[in-house]
């Protein structure tokens, strides 16, 4: 029997780690690829790596129809993409950074400090009627912090999108460096 692709109502989230050549328009090429194939990017973070000629991208993608292996193979077909790997939940360390601005009278600041401590977050800016909290960690932790702070009225929020690496000794590297 020919197996049919599984249809999922809201789709599953997958964290993809990409090692790519650090060249002009690579971000455009990869972001464009996701939209052309009809895949939704939940977050995308890109930055330099231990080797200046390469960048590492962490893309969290929501897939409804296509298997993640196909997405990996399609990305690896792009010439500047060296290697792509899906990072399974149990095999990855995933972190995200958030900055949250709360407009609130000074009398609430003590309570906010206590909440921040619980989430290992820091108060990074204070003014008489506002403060800014910085937190990092897995997405779920930041979601919980956001929910907790929502009661005080979040006026501005910025999340970095996830970055992730695989646990253990395995690395993404060009063939000649493996």
């Amino acid at each position, binding site marked *: *029997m*020919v*197996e*049919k*692709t599984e249809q999922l109502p809201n789709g599953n989230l997958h964290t993809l780690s990409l090692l*790519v*050549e650090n060249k*002009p*328009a690579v971000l*455009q*090429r990869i972001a*464009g*690829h996701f939209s*052309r194939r009809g895949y939704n990017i939940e977050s995308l973070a890109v930055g330099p790596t231990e080797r200046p000629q390469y960048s590492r991208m962490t893309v969290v993608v929501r897939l409804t129809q*296509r*298997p993640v*292996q*196909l997405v990996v*193979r*399609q990305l*690896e*077909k*792009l*010439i*500047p*993409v*060296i*290697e792509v790997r899906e990072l399974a939940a149990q095999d990855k360390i995933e972190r995200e950074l958030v900055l949250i601005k709360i407009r609130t009278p000074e009398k609430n600041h003590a309570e906010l400090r206590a909440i921040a401590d619980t989430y290992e977050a820091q108060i990074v800016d204070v003014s008489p009627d506002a403060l800014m909290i910085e937190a990092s960690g897995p997405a779920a932790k930041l979601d919980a912090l956001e929910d907790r702070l929502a009661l005080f009225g979040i006026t501005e929020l910025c999340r970095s999108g996830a970055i992730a690496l695989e646990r253990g000794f395995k690395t993404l590297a*060009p*063939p*000649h460096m493996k």
Partner: protein
Amino acid sequence: MPKEKMTGACAVVRALELEGVEWIFGMPGGTILPIYDAIYTSSLKDKHILIRHEQVGGHAAEGYAHATGKVGVCMGTSGPGSTNLVTPIADAHMDSVPLVVITANVAAPLIGTDAFQEADITGITMPITKHNYLVTEAEEIPRIMKEAFHLARTGRPGPVHVDIPKDILNKTLDFEYPETVSVPGYMPPLREAPRIPDAAMLIRSSTRPCIYLGGGVRTGNAFAEVFEFCELVGAPVVTTLHGKGTFPETHPQCLRMFGMHGSRYANYTVQNSDLIVALGARFDDRVTGRLSTFAPEAKIIHLEVDPAEISKLVTATVPLVGDLKELLPQLTAEVRAIFSARGQPDLAPWWQRVSDWREKHPLRIRQEGEAQILPQTAIERIWQKCGGRAIVTTGVGAHQMWAAQFWVVSQPRRFITSGGLGTMGFCLPAAIGAQLACPDALVIGIDGDGSFQMTLQDLATASEHKLPIKIFILNNLFLGMVRQWQELFYEERFSETPLADLPDLVKLAEAYSCLGLRARTLPELDPVIEKALAYREGPCVVDIRVKAEEKVYPMVPAGAPLHDMIGGD
């Protein structure tokens, strides 16, 4: 090779010379002038074909590449010159045609200022090329040109676009053409070795196998390997539009084209098979029909050079990723070994069913008692008059499907058409490219009146070079394929599909110094074909008036199961 000082433009020209380019199709303009100036004093001067529209240059390069298996080259200037190349680039991308497309852009300091004839052409071609480059340093030109040709012709071939700002064409560099390329992200190593014994076991245990050949057989140049495999397995062979001719259509095993306008017997065979061996194919919607009902009992062996095609639409039971020419002989050897150890499966009952379908539902031409010329009759007569010994190019539409059904191809690279993108206007440019590639071959275009009018200005190019191409226009004064859909699915509301009887194709041909001929009735048909085939002094355009209401049958309506066909029984 010692380094030599030259301009960026000269470096481009030198790279084209070193790549052994035989023909370049292009048109000059403001920003690409430095390259044209360099061509003027180079050996490429006699190898450049001035086309009248860049789109034609692109399709001509495709026709050349298809006929020869070599990389086609086309060029255009910035802005509209480059955007006119978008259609052929997309066409080549869909059909895996190796192209190197060179465009110039405005000078680097002007990029981003909305300068005259500026377009972000690399931004535009990014999703429709195998790869593209915006050159930022003159010193990069030799490496990028080397890479462009390498990427275009290897692996799954495709178009590679190189865009060079004008100031970089004028800068001086030390030219040294690299001997090797190093692209670390290209064709990453496979995660697992191909499971050839598993594939051979499936073939041994199948009682209703079917071999499905796609355009990858052509792009992979694996004709002999495929022939040997097919004869060994002894299964029915079906092809896609681009698979036509990769296995002789005259061979008793060949059921020819399947899919939306394939024969009933080919489609029934696919649908009833218990094993499909897909070689260089991608399960396009025009061949599978509704995916959920495609070959419901079949296991799938998918041998394909592009890993991203594996299980994209139909899950492969055994995927075999690799170059057809290298991998298929390994499978053939394994199958031969297993056949000699355990005997060959008995396919006689299966062939009995297939032969019954073939006898019961042949492709028919119902010309008898019909006063007007049927388009299928015209194709059959042209085939008979030249014994099928021609390279055929087509446009896109009903005429293309009739040509696919009735033009029997027994050799590879003899049926050149636009498949994936379905680009009307492809016929004349592709014929120009094919005739230049094969000057001694008989090159025949089978076109429609709608399709022909999209690129007809390049009769001038064909005429200037006295190319003896013969363009037969199956003229039904309609956008025929769209008309067919309107008749079948839109209750005969023929919205904007009737074409006025314009231009007078005979006079048009004469205006371009071509031979113009016309056949309105059946008795006129044979003499006109004979006259056209005998004419060698230049291009010939034949206006064949055909019955407007004739439809392409059988037909699988879009989204219907492959065995659910209209007509043709």
